[in-house]
């Protein structure tokens, strides 16, 4: 029983990361029509930044989170300007370019961190909350779920309350029509990828003290992001967040009771099933609140 409650709580905390990964992927796909295969590597760069600055050079953790966001956002903006924009009418071309970026970022990480064993970042927030005598939640995890929630709420407010957010959703719905209404679609694309990359950078920075950091960590992240995006419905942000919670709970449960590999296999099968039965996912189509 304790194990069950504990894994539900762990699943909820995990869902914050999953949502951050998927939201960026959804934004970039929704607005620009590009599947960003390098998204996992953006998260990896965020984690490496924290490892390099905080664990190696002693920069305060909160500062390194900000720096990670800035670096990853800059990479995302460069990808949009130099790769995705010239390939706007060729979604496959954009996808292939992002695979090229994936390789380059992996090698960059290897050059900075060296090969060899995975890196660890000592958690800056020590201590554990103990609830109901048996439920243990490390403070570091509480911190990361709180920050991810705050980021998601901020994104939701931006998309639903600001003019820019409305414009972004309009572009996601119909690029041509919104361009006829005087919306600068290139600028909106830049904003979309900036937000997506910033979320990835934040996720990477937050996850750094909780996982093993290595140049290939992006692989599992992109698989998770794909599963969450597809199950939630391509282009639906609320769907992605809901799917992130469900999948995180499911993944944590199966990992606890069986194994992580089984969890990923069944996640992939669920995703294929969703693609067959209801390709629009559990929530509609276009980017909406």
């Amino acid at each position, binding site marked *: 029983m304790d194990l069950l409650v504990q894994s539900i709580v762990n699943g909820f905390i995990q869902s914050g990361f999953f949502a951050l990964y998927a939201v960026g992927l959804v934004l970039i796909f929704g607005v620009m029509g590009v599947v960003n295969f390098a998204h996992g590597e953006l998260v990896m760069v965020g984690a490496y930044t924290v490892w390099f600055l905080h664990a190696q050079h002693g920069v305060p953790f909160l500062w390194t989170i900000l720096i990670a966001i800035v670096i990853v956002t800059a990479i995302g903006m460069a990808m949009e300007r130099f790769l995705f924009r010239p390939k706007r009418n060729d979604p496959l071309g954009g996808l292939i370019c992002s*695979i090229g970026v994936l*390789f380059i970022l992996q090698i960059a990480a290897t050059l900075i961190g060296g090969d060899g064993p995975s890196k660890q970042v000592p958690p800056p927030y020590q201590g554990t909350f103990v609830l109901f005598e048996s439920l243990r939640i490390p403070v570091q995890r509480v911190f990361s779920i709180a920050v991810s929630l705050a980021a998601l709420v901020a994104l939701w407010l931006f998309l639903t309350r600001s003019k820019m957010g409305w414009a972004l959703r309009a572009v996601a719905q119909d690029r041509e029509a919104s361009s006829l209404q005087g919306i600068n679609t290139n600028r909106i694309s830049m904003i979309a990828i900036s937000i997506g990359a910033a979320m990835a950078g934040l996720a990477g920075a937050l996850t750094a003290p909780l996982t093993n950091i290595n140049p290939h960590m992006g692989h599992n992240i992109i698989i998770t992001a794909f599963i969450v995006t597809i199950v939630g419905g391509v282009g639906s942000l609320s769907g992605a967040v809901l799917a992130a919670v469900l999948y995180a709970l499911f993944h944590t449960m199966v990992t606890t009771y069986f194994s992580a590999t089984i969890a990923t296999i069944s996640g992939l099968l669920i995703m*294929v099933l969703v693609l067959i039965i209801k390709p629009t996912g559990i929530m509609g189509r276009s980017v909406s609140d």
Partner: protein
Amino acid sequence: MPKKYTNCAGLAGLLAALVIVPHFLKYHHQDFLIFLTINVLVVSSYRLVTLTGEWSLIHAVMMGVGAYASTLLTKSAGLSFWISLPLAGCVAGAVAAILCFPLFRMTQFYFLIGSFAAGEAIRLCWIHFIQPFGGTGGISGIPFPELGNIDFLEPVPYFYLVLVIVTLCLVLLYRIEKSRIGLTLRAVHWKAPLAESVGVDTWKYRSLAFIIGSAFVGIAGSLKVHYLGTVTPNQYGIGFMVFILIWVIVGGYATFYGAIIGVVVLSILDESFRGFEELRPAIYGLILIASILFLPSGLESVPERIRGWVSNRAAARNGPGIQG
């Protein structure tokens, strides 16, 4: 007609050169030549799948299916290589046939992601089910082919074996592409609704291309493991799939030989980067991005471009004429 004869003579010359060349190479270059020849079959079979306009991300895993099938058939079931080689193709084709039902209910982006998911699920099964697939470490000690007194442990005889089988497969693939089926596949790509309106079952033809392509890459997988002697799940992961994509895209996919040019040119380039082992993927990434941005129709379009460039120069020299 004469062009056809020059092409045939060119191909015969190339084959003759390939028969002689390995004797003048060092050991590891002979190895390289074997894997290059196998990869030529991999990209050519992938091309058949892409003829219908669907880019799958499962081709590398299908090669792995052939590799594992051949491994288990020879090592565990004790069959001879000569039987397991075609059977590996059949098994890969059969797995592809089963996957058709879920996968071809999707198209475009959904198919891409769906095929990636299905492939990853198969690969994770190899990792998870240690009996019979051997887990992450895979299976080693796979027997070499046996035929009379020929020693297939040596690279040169094995290269001849690979060359014969790959040439046969390429001829078959070429015939399929030029046949009525190949033409219909193109129709399915460019004008699917029109093709359907004249009674073409697009689902059937997409599946057919996928099954045939997978069967041939299964054979390639079998050829690879019986030379390497080991098979692991990571050899056939998304990493290798990306290389297949790069070869096809950099080479160009409008013609049959485009993908082959891609794999040959990039592999030779890759060989020459041996000095900077750890930078290789990044160099590949840069080549990929550069070719997408600056050479979107691939290496196969280079002669055409040079011709266009030369004639433009000539036009410019003849003074400002009427520009279109």
